[in-house]
């Protein structure tokens, strides 16, 4: 018996070895190696020195870094909340009417296309003489053209809009899965009690979707912190620092200016903040009595 278990253990490790090797090099190693790196001035160009806490004190005096943290925070506070719109989408595409599967697919297409393509399309639509300004002027919502992406006060919100637009379909699918798990007799019972569609949503659908709402909020928060592609392609953090998010700033410091040491320190600070945030969300998750994950 003992021998059997031991050989099973050997086989198990043999199976896992290749995968774990890759994870060790490309998932665990970056986390570990980033820590000593952040106490040096490693930059490829000059000799590397140990600099103690210099990178960290520098970071908290670095105006751009603080701005980037703030922008990321704004992103995290706003985008996951707007994503809740996808619940309404899910309710709509959960109707049993002909052609509804076609709509599901249509809403999902932004999710499968590349952010490069999506960003390109929206940058045109949002241009000075673009379709969005044209339509809003025609409808009388605007009185003059707005350069959405090159105005400091609008650029970040435009990027948030694009992030949300691309993600809606994904969250819709997750909620749809949740909706299909709600027993039909609950709605039947509500109908017998004389509840209208809106009351059914508020009193039956939303409470039963809670595990899904928490899960989607969690991944949406993580996504909002890591947001990179759309910012990098469309504004590179500009105009000024109005759309600089922390991942873009770390990328600029690290892979554009090759300040690996400083960038690692920034990464470490952000990781700690994200870690704390996810523990918080997980805690809230547990309090809700949810064990979906």
């Amino acid at each position, binding site marked *: 018996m003992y021998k059997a278990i031991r050989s099973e253990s050997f086989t198990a490790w043999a199976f896992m070895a290749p995968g774990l090797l890759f994870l060790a090099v490309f998932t665990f190693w970056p986390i570990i190696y980033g820590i000593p*790196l952040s106490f040096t001035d490693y930059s490829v160009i000059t000799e590397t020195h140990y600099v103690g806490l210099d990178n960290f004190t520098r970071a908290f005096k670095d105006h751009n870094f603080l701005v980037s943290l703030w922008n990321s925070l704004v992103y995290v506070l706003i985008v996951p909340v707007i994503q809740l719109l996808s619940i309404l989408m899910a309710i*709509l595409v959960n109707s049993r009417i002909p052609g509804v599967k076609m709509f599901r697919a249509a809403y999902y297409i932004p999710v499968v296309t590349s952010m490069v393509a999506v960003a390109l399309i929206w940058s045109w639509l949002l241009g000075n003489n*673009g379709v969005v300004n044209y339509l809003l002027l025609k409808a009388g919502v605007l009185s003059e053209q707005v350069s959405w992406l090159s105005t400091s006060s609008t650029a970040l919100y435009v990027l948030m809009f694009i992030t949300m637009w691309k993600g809606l379909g994904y969250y819709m699918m997750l909620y749809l899965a949740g909706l299909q798990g709600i027993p039909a007799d609950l709605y039947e019972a509500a109908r017998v009690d004389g509840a209208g569609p809106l009351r059914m949503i508020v009193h039956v659908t939303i409470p039963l979707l809670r595990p899904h709402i928490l899960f989607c909020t969690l991944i949406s928060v993580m996504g909002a912190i890591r947001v990179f592609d759309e910012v990098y392609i469309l504004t590179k953090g500009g105009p000024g620092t109005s759309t600089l998010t*922390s991942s873009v700033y770390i990328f600029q410091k690290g892979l554009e200016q090759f300040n690996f040491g400083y960038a690692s320190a*920034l990464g470490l600070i952000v990781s700690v903040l994200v870690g704390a945030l996810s523990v918080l969300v997980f805690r809230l998750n547990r309090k809700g009595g949810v064990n979906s994950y």
Partner: protein
Amino acid sequence: MKTCLRYVITYVLLILLALFMMGPFLWLLSVSLMPGRNVFANPPAILPTFIAFDNYVQVWEFMEFPRYIMNTVVITLLGVVFNIVLSCLTAYPLAVFRFKGRNLVFTLLISTMVIPSATAMIVHYLTIQAFNLGNTFLGVVLPAAVSVFNIFLMRQTFLGIPVDIRDSGKMDGASEFRIFVQLVMPLVKPGIAVIGLLEVMAFWNNFLWPIVVLDDPQKYPLAAALTYLNGQFSYNFGWIAAGTMISVLPIIIVFLFTQKYYMEGIAGAIKG
């Protein structure tokens, strides 16, 4: 009467949303079919007055699309094969074997999901350089060769397989590896299809990491080439629109043909 009204309202909302989600793509298609028109003309060109494929022909001749498509296909295939093989191998023992350290491995995997490393890309860059894989497709693929998410997804699938299968294989004297390949793997095809599709999308659309690793733009995949095209010909909207359509269409077609598996897989992933 009441249900009829409900139908009408639902359809109106569905169509409005469809315009919101699909409108930008339809407009892109329309721009790509308009020869010699500027998207920023006033009023902006929304619908083509006549349809022509000039933009497609010209950008195809100019951009060496076959090369970029080949690059993308090679990178995507490598990425998908690595991910399927590695995540199946890693997930299988976690689902069916009883061994010391199983919980430790599992906890380690989960912890990487909770603590994302913003520095990962910098260390990946250094690692790839150290392995001498800079400017190679392997350098593009390896950092994403296996993901914790896929391991979870496959573990979930393996858990759904009856224990008897492994026992009956043992009875016949098959080795663990043979049981895995010949008896177990055929039963988890749907799970494999799902991680395969997820990775097809991920590798097809990846642009940043390939730009970081590849010094030679000739090796760029489509999404990266597109940013290159946009930088070089930002005045020629028709071309860029056509190029974008060419890069986006294959993945949309793959999605439309496989959406059933794909959506079930996404939904199954959170039940995990």
